[in-house]
């Protein structure tokens, strides 16, 4: 006759761990994007296909965590951070994985090649955007420490610093994007217009990758402000 314990049933699973696990998978996805662009530069279409499959698989795994996390976030939870903010962060993290999958999917499908004149610039642009995702992950990984300190004191400063660094990376990415667009503009007439149009679209999405990472930082800032 074990009586149901009110004390035990009072503790719900904290969303922080699954949130961090989700972000880990998302960053794995983003890392693959770096590898993917190197393969594109080498015009290794087999590798591209393989890497795209890996990205799709990682995105799937991240999706499972996301669905599970959402299912375990009922309205009745009392948390040190608003439920809406947590759900919003998951949505943004999810977007990063989706963007990676989109980019690699479209480029694999269209057998996109990078013009030699901009290939290196492209790769460093992607690397910088992926770095933004990693910086956002760093901040996400501090969430359990933030709860430990009750969102107060030095720990808040530590995370603020991480987010400041994220800001820098994001504006770096913007600069690289402008540079890349300028370089593309110079050579775009030498290539088929449709291919060029799609490459511009890819630049858009890579830029968004950094943007979304940046937004995750802003959400964490909101958590700390309350």
């Amino acid at each position, binding site marked *: *006759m*074990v*009586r*149901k*314990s*009110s*004390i*035990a*049933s*009072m*503790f*719900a*699973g*904290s*969303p*922080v761990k699954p949130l961090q696990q989700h972000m880990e998978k998302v960053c794995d996805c983003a890392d693959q994007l770096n590898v993917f662009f190197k393969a594109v530069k080498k015009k290794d279409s087999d590798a591209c296909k393989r890497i795209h499959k890996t990205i799709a698989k990682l995105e799937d795994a991240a999706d499972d965590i996301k669905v599970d996390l959402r299912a375990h976030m009922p309205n*009745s*939870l*009392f*948390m*040190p951070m608003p439920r809406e903010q947590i759900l919003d962060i998951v949505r943004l993290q999810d977007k990063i994985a989706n963007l990676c999958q989109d980019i690699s999917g479209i480029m694999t499908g269209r057998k996109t090649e990078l013009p030699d004149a901009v290939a290196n610039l492209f790769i460093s642009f992607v690397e910088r955007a992926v770095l933004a995702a990693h910086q956002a992950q760093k901040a996400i990984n501090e969430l*359990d*420490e933030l*709860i*430990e*300190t*009750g*969102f*107060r*004191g*030095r*720990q808040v400063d530590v995370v603020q610093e991480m987010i400041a660094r994220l800001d820098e990376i994001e504006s770096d990415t913007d600069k690289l994007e402008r540079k890349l667009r300028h370089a593309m503009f110079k050579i775009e007439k030498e290539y088929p217009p449709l291919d060029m149009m799609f490459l511009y679209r890819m630049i858009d999405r890579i830029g968004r990758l950094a943007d979304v990472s940046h937004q995750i930082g802003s959400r964490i800032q909101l958590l700390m402000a309350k």
Partner: protein
Amino acid sequence: MESVLVSHASIYIGLAVIFGLFMAWGIGANDVANAMGTSVGSGALSFKQAVLIAAVFELAGAILAGGEVTATIRKGIIDVSALDQTPELLVYGMLASLLAAAIWLLVASRQGWPVSTTHSIVGAIVGFGAVGIGMEAVHWSKVGTIVASWITSPLLAGTMAFLLFRSIQKLVINTDDPVAMAKRYVPVYIFLVGFVVAMVTMVKGLKHVGIKLPMESNLAIAVAVGIGIMIIGTAMIRRIKIRPKDDRDFHFANMEKIFGVLMIFTAMAIAFAHGSNDVANAIGPVAAVVGIVQSAGEIASKSSTPAWILLLGGGGIVFGLATYGHKVIATVGSGITELTPSRGFAATLGAAVTIVLASGVGLPISTTHTLVGAVLGVGIARGIGALNTNVIKTIFMSWIVTLPAGAGLSILFFFILKSIYS
């Protein structure tokens, strides 16, 4: 009338002891787990250590500080002076209450309802008193105070836990060197645990075991107890190995190890507090029956609770713990994994102090509800990842269900017993 009591004396006492033991067994088997759950769940205690601490300190609490609440259950709720002519009614009523509470708890456990032992027994006694004897037989003002304490105790525990947690945030967690600060301040908190528990016990509990000391010696002994366990605690902290690499994943792992020591003492305090308050649920009615029967019908409202009855209750709790409760502690403990020792400490000490204070002034309160209030207090300080607020709803439900159920059953048994013996 006396002849009924005298001729059935051994039956009445025998029944009371059996029912009381069963209730005590139930408390040890089920309720202790809630009190110890936060300590096991935070990882500060292994489950075996928790069972050992629970056994020793539940017993100590029951014997040393259980007298005041026992007195309330025994003679505080029913106005015994109205029963001068028919003392056997009180015997039937108390037996009926024990039986009602025990059966109700058994049924509720089967159904998985979270019910409180305290509420069951108080509901049962009020029930037979109001219906079986008469509305005027119930000390309504005392009942009012008890019911009010069921609301104030979680609030008080929550406030204390909140303040305790904020104090460790300020003094330890949010400093440049949390480990060094924890080493400095944790002994102070250990002193606080020992001092408060010892003080309340000295002032309020010990008179029931026949010891009465002047205030100054109470204070001196409480300070001595506090310093004594502070020295033990400091020695334990010295033995902790601080490994910087443990902080790589979670930056506060080493600090939490030091709070783990504090948690051991807090676990002792809550076991003591629980024993001092909940033992009365089992033996309060027993003490009433024994008191009436032994004085052969004279309802002695002055005499104190015999020590052997307190021992009976404490022993019953330990027996319940040994035969069944250890399993429940493991289950409850493994269900609480989100709690770190620093939070577990704040919540448990907030609850323990509240319960010990309630025991001191003779108020029977629910340990579980007090602890729930304390955990919420830490949650409000943004200290816990996620809490299920549905639990608060189930607590209200158990309130609404337990009181009438306990009352109804005890009224039923009261009339059955009455018709058997007269």
